[in-house]
């Protein structure tokens, strides 16, 4: 057994030192396979965005000209954007979205952080089942609950009021933040708080002054996620609001910019692009956090 292994090894070594022609060829093929695959995925993932962008900078005459190749633009114009900003309620919806997303993020981050700390660190009765139920509520899709939620929101008189969104968004954001932050809290060594508590700190003070600064990356990550999730939310905003003045951006664009069966594709695409810009900006600055946050649950699970 031993001899056969050494023999095999001696056979491998010269081959790796002097690459044979077949080996070089194989490397080139697998390399082109990788970059071919990369190109394939890049085109598929990005094509819709490219086409939306191109459409949004075309004049109407070019958009509806069947003889022109659709992927190019001959006379780029900002007309569609100008129309969108001047003739529609786009800016109002942008403001609504910003307010709703900010308030619900702050609420969720606050509630989520203190709950996560308690679940991750404190020993008390019911800790385990509570942690489990947070995980389960994290899995509940919004479409299971939008109907009874609309019923309850009407009962308490908040229908068609932005406050309805600010209090319902935390129902999916709090479980999410709690779950994400529990991981961060568990990674902080217990000794840090214990030292502070030996020195006379209370538990809550140790949490606030020592642990919170350490998990700042987690808070940033959870906050960004919460903000993007609220910004993108559609179903609750669609069912809990009615008048154009309180609509959020996605619902406003989808339900109000289409007049009957008439689609103004140019300005619709401009709206879709501009409505995604805040998310793209957040995302480009915090990509690292974002990917880490997204995969944290999956990898740890």
């Amino acid at each position: 057994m031993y001899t056969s292994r050494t023999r095999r090894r001696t056979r491998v070594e010269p081959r790796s030192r002097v690459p044979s022609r077949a080996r070089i060829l194989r490397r080139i093929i697998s390399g082109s396979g990788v970059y071919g695959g990369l190109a394939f995925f890049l085109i598929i993932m990005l094509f819709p965005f490219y086409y939306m962008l191109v459409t949004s900078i075309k004049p109407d005459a070019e958009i509806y000209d069947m003889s022109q190749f659709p992927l190019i633009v001959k006379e780029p114009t900002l007309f569609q954007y100008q129309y969108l900003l001047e003739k529609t309620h786009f800016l109002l919806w942008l403001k609504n979205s910003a307010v709703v997303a900010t308030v619900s993020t702050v609420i969720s981050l606050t509630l989520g952080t203190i709950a996560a700390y308690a679940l991750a660190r404190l020993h008390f009765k019911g800790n385990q089942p509570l942690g489990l139920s947070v995980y389960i509520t994290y899995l509940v899709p919004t479409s299971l609950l939008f109907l009874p939620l609309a019923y309850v929101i009407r009962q308490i008189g908040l229908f068609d009021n932005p406050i309805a969104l600010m209090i319902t968004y935390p129902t999916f954001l709090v479980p999410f933040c709690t779950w994400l932050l529990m991981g961060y809290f568990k990674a902080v060594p217990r000794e840090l708080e214990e030292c502070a508590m030996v020195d006379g700190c209370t538990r809550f003070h140790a949490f606030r002054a020592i642990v919170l600064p350490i998990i700042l990356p987690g808070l940033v990550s959870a906050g960004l996620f919460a903000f993007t999730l609220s910004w993108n939310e559609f179903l609750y905003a669609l069912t809990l609001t009615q008048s154009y003045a309180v609509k959020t951006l996605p619902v406003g664009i989808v339900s109000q910019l289409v007049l009957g069966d008439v689609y103004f594709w140019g300005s619709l695409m401009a709206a879709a692009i501009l409505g995604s810009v805040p998310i793209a900006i957040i995302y480009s600055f915090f990509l690292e956090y974002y990917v880490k946050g997204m995969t944290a649950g999956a990898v740890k699970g």
Partner: protein
Amino acid sequence: MNVSVVHSEKKNFFQSFSVWLDKDSRLGPLMIAPAAILLIALIGYPFLSAIYLGFTDRVIARAETGNFIWLKNYIELLQDTIFQKTVVNTFNYAFTAVFFKLVLGMLMALVLDRVTVFKNLFRGVMLLPWIMPTSLSVLGWLWMFSPQFSVLNRLLLDAGILQEKIIWLGSPFWAMFSVQLVNIWRGIPFFGISLLAGMQTIPQDLYEAAEIDGANSWRKFWTITIPLLMPVTTVVTLFSIVQTFADFQVVYVLTRGGPVNSTHLFATLTYQTAILGGELGKGAAISLFMFPVLVIAVILQLRYLQRQD
């Protein structure tokens, strides 16, 4: 004199309060309480009212309704052809889409794992369909599926792949195909990036050892990558099944459940029945049909996580 006594008592009270609080069994529940109250009020209570509504004939703005009718909603739904079609659609939509998302996501992860230049840039760009507001990117797809101006038709015709144009959202078959296509497009990066993160936790020396033993890439993939990636794959897949099963936006924006109710999912049929049609009782019953699948997925996931521990 008097004042200072009161003052010191006050201080004592606060001190003793914070000492009283400084115990896990008291501080813990107090820190959980705000989140718990919110979730009970806006998840627990609505959920219970959905169960109750499902047993009633409640219709919006009609006072004489709201009578308890036992299982009548459920029985009527099971005999309803649109509902039967919706059940088939939802399972078809969820399982087809998740299957392709898993396979293509795995492929994407393998590709990204081997790319050595501009790694972060490519990863970031690939995630765009997943992070951009879904309703807005689906609006882009609606334009690409336009009956008159569809860019997809144009490109496929020019390339000679199609002989005549497809009315993407106009026939039941192509409409279902289209909504699945968009869901898959949006979900691939989620699988891709999650599986990639999983792949990178696999120790390199396993692959090196396999190479020394003469294993080729295919064999390495099946005997090392796949088994070690199982935990991530299972969690991500179950999560995606639940999300896809309960999807709303793609179908709502593209077809609103049409043509002739052929692409309805549970969520869009609930919306049409209860919000547009006002039949709260029946709508609640439809949405509750989603519940068993959710329960099964959660149980499987929890079991799996426990076994991993």
